């Protein structure tokens, strides 16, 4: 780790604070605080009038004080916890508001109960209803809202003297019954978006980890096989020096992985001729009874990235042959098909073979060959019969069909 990089612990802390769920909860909390403070700011100018016109000024002052204190408590707790009021606080909040409605029967003159800030209870109850956003159980939130509505009905009932008063009362009730649930639903959407964003981030992180592990396997697989050959190798000095040369190339690949750069393959940067590529790979395996048939691949150009992948894949296949096949003859054939579309590379050996139905592919065949090439649009077909030999066919078509999973494109031919 270099000095510029922050320690890992800081990264984790930053990640936690910036989780989308937390951000969504903060947004909801901010809405609650905003509604409560705005309501209180609108109420305060009417306080002197309310006290002045009250028949019971002390009781009236007490209701205002209670509303103000409750606002301070709720705003304080919400700001401290950075989330909307939890169930306990919400229940207390509703209880206080119900009490304020009931007290209003004595402290607010009937004519001031709607359309004025002297009768602050109606507006205050709306911001309390909005504060229910933190109670995410629908039945509980609804019960609390209905309790509030019932208290409002009691508070407003004495102001209904004839039918013409009904619309005004109903309008106030509906404001409460509409705004409360609307805010509750909106908060639900925001919180769900936050949670889904976190899940998506988690999925992306998991996929990145899986990709990292795959890259690590790619980087070290061939190297591991070569190290084993170097350790166990009993052949002549010729074989030894060939394996050493390959080991050097694999060492470059591993170092490139560690430094996060593209491996230095010693190849030119431009497009690579398929026949040249196949012949160069075969040159590293001169200890195998290997015949290269690549005339029909002359002139097929591969982009450097695909060329790297194909080089690794062929290297891995031939290391497999060297380690396991005990073959008398290996043929590496490459061609541009007669229709001129894409290319096909075939590796055949007449060695011991294996049962593709029961033998799981090793890291080399699965990751270095099948998966890596599938990502580049190359399909892999493995055909092997114990005692007869193995054929691996790598096919690149210009417009590849959607790549199915391994079991689909590594089928055995029917006997």
């Amino acid at each position, binding site marked *: 780790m270099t000095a510029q990089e922050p320690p890992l612990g800081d990264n984790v802390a930053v990640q936690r604070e910036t989780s989308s769920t937390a951000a969504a909860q903060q947004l909801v909390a901010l809405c609650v605080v905003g509604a409560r403070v705005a309501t209180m700011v609108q109420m305060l100018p009417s306080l002197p009038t309310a006290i002045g016109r009250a028949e019971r000024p002390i009781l009236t002052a007490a209701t205002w004080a209670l509303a103000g204190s409750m606002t301070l408590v709720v705003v304080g707790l919400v700001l401290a916890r950075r989330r909307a009021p939890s169930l306990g606080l919400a229940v207390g909040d509703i209880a206080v508001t119900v009490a304020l409605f009931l007290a209003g029967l004595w402290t607010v003159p009937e004519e001031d109960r709607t359309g004025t800030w002297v009768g602050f209870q109606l507006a205050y109850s709306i911001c309390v209803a909005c504060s229910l956003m933190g109670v995410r159980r629908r039945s509980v939130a609804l019960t609390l809202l209905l309790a509030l509505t019932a208290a409002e009905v009691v508070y407003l009932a004495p102001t209904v003297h004839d039918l013409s008063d009904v619309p005004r009362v109903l309008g106030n009730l509906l404001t409460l019954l509409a705004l409360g649930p609307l805010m509750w639903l909106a908060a639900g959407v925001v919180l769900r978006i936050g949670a889904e964003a976190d899940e998506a981030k988690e999925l992306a992180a998991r996929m990145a980890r899986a990709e990292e592990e795959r890259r690590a396997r790619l980087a070290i697989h061939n190297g591991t096989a070569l190290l084993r050959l170097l350790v166990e190798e009993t052949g002549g000095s010729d074989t030894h020096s060939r394996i050493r040369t390959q080991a050097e190339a694999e060492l470059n690949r591993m170092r490139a992985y560690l430094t996060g750069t593209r491996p230095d393959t010693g190849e030119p940067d431009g497009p690579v001729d398929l026949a040249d590529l196949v012949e160069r790979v075969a040159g590293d395996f001169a200890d195998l009874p290997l015949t290269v*048939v*690549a005339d029909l691949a002359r002139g097929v150009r591969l982009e450097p990235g695909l060329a790297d992948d194909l080089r690794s894949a062929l290297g891995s296949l031939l290391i497999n042959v060297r380690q396991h096949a005990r073959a008398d003859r290996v043929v590496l*054939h490459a061609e541009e098909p007669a229709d001129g579309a894409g290319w096909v590379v075939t590796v*055949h050996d007449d060695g011991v073979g294996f049962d593709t139905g029961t033998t799981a592919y090793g890291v080399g065949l699965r990751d270095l060959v099948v998966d890596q090439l599938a990502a580049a649009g190359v399909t892999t077909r493995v055909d092997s*019969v114990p005692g007869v030999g193995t*054929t691996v066919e790598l096919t690149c078509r210009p417009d590849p069909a959607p790549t199915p999973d391994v079991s689909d494109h590594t089928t055995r031919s*029917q006997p």
Partner: protein
Amino acid sequence: MTARFALVDDATALRESLATLLPDLTFVSTHRSSEELLAARPEADVVILDLHLVNHQQPQVTQGTAAIRRVVEAGYRVCVYTQEERRFVLAACVAAGATGVVSKASSLTEAEAAFRAVADGELAVPPAVTGLIEVLVRRGSITVLSPRQREVLAGRARGLTYAELSRSLYVSESTLRGYWKELTSTVSDYLQETSPGDIERALGLGPGDLIDVWPATR
């Protein structure tokens, strides 16, 4: 009828041992040179012929494609048995009339199978040479092949055995051998009758690339 084999090789050890190593084959005679063989005229169907026969004991003997041609003209089928690996040299052996080309590096099983195939009139060549034939077919120099023959050719050029091919083509091994036999007589005729210059062009080689290895056109 059991095929009879004669061996021409300048290596004494090989002359003395091959019959022992391949006890299922009937060897009627062994010779140090093609001249010795042609003088003796053994009653053999196939002559297994080494490509390089000149050594300090017999500096003047005929070897290479010239020897192949002489032995073929004497009425024998020839299977070249050699350490030579260069594919154009091996293809030149077929152009000179050889029915088979087998590497001395091959396993005994493989060599025996190739000798028997030659006795049966079947072209037996390594994948490197089959690959050249595939190029000649693909470039239109050799034209008569049926789709089945092309499939067998493609499989053989990839090193597949008849057993493996029969699994993927759903055809019996003997049928596949039939396709191969039809195909190889066309190929042999083409190689024997076409000038080195034409073959160079067909294979995309430079002018004169084959001149040192190829036999003169009949």
